[in-house]
């Protein structure tokens, strides 16, 4: 009796499993049939490619447009799209990398995250695909190809090249009766200039939207202008001195006191506000520090206003006039991808195809390949044309771009914390600089 009861329990359990298994079987059947048909026609299997990028709804439209065309031309390919906003993108990506389920193709900001990912053996080298012709690198700038290399292997292809810049609202300047800033404006001149603007602005509006010390590009450029870098090449020590940091924080603290940049509290709130509702996008600020390729996005939020791009302030008494880094948003393939051949084809299409790049334009910056640039000449947004000019000017007097070494992410977060302490007035500049150097050294020597 007992045995029978036990048996029946087993049977019930077993049944539930088989039912589950059966139902999944029936689901997959039609798919198989479909693929059978296409095999006859195209001699290629149905594949699904996961493609992830960071951006905003406007950029997603551009991606979707390109990927839709690719799907139409390659009916056997289905592209699963995984867009996220900038902040979410990196946390999601690191979790996926650790879990071994990275998207087949995804975007990677080389300056910030290149070394973090290249050194972890999760990205597929592209050399073999270049060799067999799946990916074409003819006509590419050597500097741009080199940016995607790590230990002599090619890992990444640039979607564009961009630099940190000041985007500004010329219509607003006109309303205030102030001329646009002269090109190559120095830090001192820029301080006087923005103070003059601030005097004319009503309460609640700012000459500069957000606090440049709350992100790391400013201090990195300052360090490079003084002949240093953010971190030393081996990633074991800081590339600038305590005095450099103090002078940098003092410069911006002066502007903060003058109201040119918002107070610590206001910019803390700004930093968690989505782009389309920050001060600059709502017409309450004249300048914003961003990579120049984002100017078009802001132009959409600020329809009716004319925008322009200015290079970051230059340094007269430094070692280098400019300190900008070339930022290279690139496209890479996961080492774990099961559709590498198809993924390589899609990468090639995305960065080289004249139709695709004509849609993408300079979304992520200026393309790093001559044929694509030539093809874009007629369709580029006026802001991008301006950006190319600014970039040509910048490239004349900046030191070589250095990809940040592994481990920089932690130092960056320490930096941001101390910078915020200064912005809130909770720490004196001297004390914060001392604290930052102590904690950063501790983190780097782990």
């Amino acid at each position, binding site marked *: 009796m007992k045995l029978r*009861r*036990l048996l029946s*329990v*087993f049977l019930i*359990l077993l049944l539930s499993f088989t039912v589950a298994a059966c139902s999944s079987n029936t689901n997959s059947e039609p798919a198989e049939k479909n693929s059978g048909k296409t095999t006859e026609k195209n001699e290629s299997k149905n594949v699904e490619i996961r493609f992830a990028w960071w951006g905003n709804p406007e950029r997603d439209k551009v991606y979707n447009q390109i990927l839709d065309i690719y799907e139409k031309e390659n009916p056997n390919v289905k592209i699963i799209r995984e867009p996220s906003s900038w*902040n979410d993108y*990196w*946390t999601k990506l*690191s*979790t996926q*990398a*650790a879990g071994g389920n990275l998207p087949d193709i995804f975007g990677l900001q080389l300056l910030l995250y290149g070394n*973090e990912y290249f050194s*972890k*053996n*999760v990205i597929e080298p592209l050399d073999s695909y270049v060799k067999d012709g799946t990916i074409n690198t003819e006509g590419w700038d050597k500097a741009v190809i080199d940016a995607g290399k790590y230990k002599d292997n090619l890992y990444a292809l640039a979607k564009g090249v961009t630099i940190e810049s000041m985007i500004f609202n010329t219509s607003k300047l006109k309303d205030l009766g102030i001329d646009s800033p002269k090109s190559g404006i120095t830090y001192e001149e820029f301080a006087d200039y923005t103070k003059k603007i601030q005097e004319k602005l009503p309460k609640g509006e700012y000459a500069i939207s957000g606090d440049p010390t709350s992100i790391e590009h400013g201090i990195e450029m300052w360090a490079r202008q003084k002949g240093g870098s953010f971190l030393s090449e081996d990633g074991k020590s800081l590339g600038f001195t305590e005095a450099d940091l103090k002078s940098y924080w003092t410069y911006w603290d002066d502007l903060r006191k003058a109201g040119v940049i918002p107070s*610590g*509290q*206001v910019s*803390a*709130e700004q*930093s*968690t506000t989505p782009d389309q509702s920050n001060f600059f996008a709502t017409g309450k600020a004249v300048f914003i520090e961003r990579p120049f390729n984002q100017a078009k996005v802001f132009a959409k939020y600020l329809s009716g206003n004319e925008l322009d791009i200015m290079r970051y302030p230059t340094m007269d008494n430094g070692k280098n006039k400019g300190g900008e880094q070339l930022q290279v948003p690139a496209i890479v393939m996961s080492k774990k991808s099961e559709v590498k051949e198809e993924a390589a084809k899609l990468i090639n299409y995305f960065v080289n195809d004249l139709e695709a790049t004509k849609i993408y334009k300079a979304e992520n910056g200026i393309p790093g390949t001559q044929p694509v640039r030539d093809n874009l000449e007629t369709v580029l947004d006026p802001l991008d044309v301006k950006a190319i000019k600014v970039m040509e000017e910048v490239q004349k007097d900046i030191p070589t771009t250095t990809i940040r070494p592994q481990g920089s*992410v*932690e130092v960056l*977060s320490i930096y*941001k*914390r101390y910078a*915020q*302490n200064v912005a*809130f007035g*909770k720490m004196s500049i001297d004390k914060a600089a001392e604290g930052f150097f102590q904690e950063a050294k*501790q983190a780097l020597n782990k």
Partner: protein
Amino acid sequence: MQAEALERESALLNVKKESAGRRLWNKNKVALLFLTPWLIGLIVLSLIPMIASMYLSFTHYDMFNMPKWTGFDNYINLLTSDLRFTQSLKVTLKYVFIGVPLQLIMAFGLAVVLNRGVRGLSGFRAIYYVPSLLGPSLAIAILWKQLFGMDGIINEFLSIFGIAPNSWVADPSTSLYTLIILLAWQFGSPMVIFLAGLKQIPTDLYESASIDGAGRFTKLFKITIPMLTPIIFFNLVMQLINAFQAFTPAYIIGGQTGGPLDSTLFYNLYLYIKAFTEFQMGYASAMAWILLAVIAAFTGLLFLLAKKWVHYES
């Protein structure tokens, strides 16, 4: 013959002894069988990861390379030299020990009011429960940020009284309190439990108290609260453990970094930052075990103290 009988008896005895050991199995095997799906879940989804994290807490592990054994280094670093760890502990303790009592007082107060036979009780009960359902969600965290932001409704309301607008979420001295209010606002589930408890209190106690001339407050303090102590205790333990594990509101409102100035750096948020943005999985695992110890210590303390004030009717 006799020897044979003896042998048989002893064999029988043996069987009996054995079956005493196996009785548990025999008695529970059907139950265990039915529990297998859950047991598998427990082992695969909880037990194994827990053991793994125990091991990882003694290693340096960046999720990509093999873990490197470092002994007690993680624990020593945490407890002796990590200032953000101390800060996150401070923030979390403040959140728990201000937020939970507030939440329970709200829950208890409303339960008592609703228990007075309000018309449409079930409707009210459902409405007051809604915040608890929405509580830990992303949407509410975003809503909260809007409410307490510079242009938020709270400022508009306060301006009626001439109070200068402030960005409550971006001010390090007030940002944690907006999260504490959020916690207190989610009083629904303890309230429902209180309501059920109130219904259990025999009405004859109140009747005889009335005959003896007891007033409303005497009845509240001499009957309702003492009779409800087991439920208060239960809610306290549950909400305490919940509050220790808070994450979502700080993640959204603090802009993923515990800002401004680490004022909303919850313990779990810091753990998350260590694990997933700084790739220090071993360190984060050690943090998780310390959190477990802290929660266990406080829960244990509550149980010890419970003997003094919780009144169980036998």
